[in-house]
């Protein structure tokens, strides 16, 4: 997406049923949405399902969408956060493995790939141990670089609450990663 004007033009065309505009919006946001969802749920397949559903709901709700302070991207994230919550309401199973089906890129060094996977797994485990609001704030604020205002709109909280929550979420994440790190080092026989 080059600028906001072109995005609003795309949205207008998409509302009129223009397939190319709908495809362009999908292509512009599918990666970001999938990235968010894949850090919030247990498996690749579930993340794919939810991502697909986000865009189907986008399509169905497009006529009602109006930019009233909530950008189009933030609106999509709002749909995604609702679907993730819906998923957990219906499926309370714990963390299984989010990495089993992760795509392996052939142009990445295999060692880097393993390191990336370890990092990803560690982050996901730590994130999943946090309350849902903390997870959303950390992913949306720092992984997706959304503003306080956007996160506040998505999570239906005040900006002040988001500012305060992000510190608590970071603290909790630090504690989780610390404990994960200790556990891993113990398992490897490197206990100090």
């Amino acid at each position: 997406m080059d600028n906001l004007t072109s995005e609003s033009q795309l949205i207008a065309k998409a509302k009129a049923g223009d397939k190319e505009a709908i495809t362009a919006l999908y292509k512009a946001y599918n990666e970001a949405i999938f990235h968010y969802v894949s850090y919030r749920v247990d498996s690749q397949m579930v993340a794919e399902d939810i991502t697909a559903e986000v865009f189907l709901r986008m399509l169905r709700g497009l006529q009602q969408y109006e930019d009233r302070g909530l950008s189009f991207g933030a609106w999509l994230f709002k749909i995604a956060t609702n679907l993730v919550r819906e998923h957990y309401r219906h499926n309370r199973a714990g963390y299984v493995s989010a990495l089993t089906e992760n795509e392996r890129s052939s142009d990445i060094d295999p060692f880097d790939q393993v390191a990336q996977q370890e990092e990803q797994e560690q982050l996901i485990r730590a994130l999943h141990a946090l309350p849902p609001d903390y997870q959303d704030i950390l992913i949306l604020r720092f992984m997706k670089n959304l503003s306080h205002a956007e996160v506040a709109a998505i999570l239906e909280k005040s900006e002040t609450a988001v500012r305060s929550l992000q510190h608590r979420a970071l603290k909790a994440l630090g504690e989780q990663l610390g404990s994960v790190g200790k556990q891993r080092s113990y398992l490897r026989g490197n206990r100090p």
Partner: protein
Amino acid sequence: MNSDDFTPMEQELIKRLQNAPQRRLTPRVEQAIQEKILAEVLQSRLPAPPTNSAGVAITPMQFILGLAAVCVVVVGVVVAIEGQRQQNPPISPAASMETTAPTTEPPSIVTTTSELIETSSSTPSITSSPLLTDTPTSTHTPAPTPTPTVSSVIIEGVIEELSENILKIGDTEIVILAHHPVLELIDVGDVLRVEGTWIADGILLADVVSNLPGAADADATVGMVGPIEFIDEGIITINGIEVIIDPRDLVGQSLSIGDFLSVEGNFKLQGARYLLVVSAVEVITKAGMSVSPDCYYEETGMSAMGMSMGMEGMAMGRWRCNGMGAMGMGMGMGGMGMGN
């Protein structure tokens, strides 16, 4: 983020989050979702881009007024038809179909369903003009959320041409979603039954594609035979197609790779993947036993999906068995297997 005062430890965590490995949709799944969305666009109530004959964009107000006018006309027509119905005997299904079929009637069109007739008479706004469903003036406008499942036409016939996801039966071109696995199972010369909706003159978008004769009366629309290639957490692969069998099915519990099966079921889109959800399964021969000479492996070359998506493990052909339908053949061969 600059306005926040983060401690060095927080900054370190933020950096770690920002550099977290990015997870991406595989190209195949990305494409499948895109197609799913576009299929919904085709079938949805989204209005077509409104333009006048000069190609100039019409304002929303003009569009709404136009819709309202169309609505009034259609309501008038419906009232007139209803009045005529009360005076005359009910119209035949074929006559009802005339209103939705394109001008060139394909020779292989056999019927419309009674469901269609009921639908078109009770909710004319749905079938007569997709534009009407978005109009705020219509009290019968359904919520735009569910995917419409009403098929306007059924075609049965022999596939005369097949090019990627477009096939021809009679004069009708039938468009199937590009990565629908049924494309792996059909070929020129096969008899097909298609339920779909007209998207243009003489072009039908397939909602249901069946390669089973008499599928109209059965629970299953798709049948295939072949050996089990993989088994993975309850999902088995036959002819490169993922098949799911009810875990309570006793036959399904004792399957192993190499078993030659005959399955019938329906393709269901689960998230971004099509799975053949099996309603009937039969083991023709167990792994290691010879398969009937009536069954053969047909090379199909590079599969369309494999070529475009670079997918691994895609079937390059499929198993076929001459003669009977899948389940009938299964029963016959089961007897042969026991004899050996």
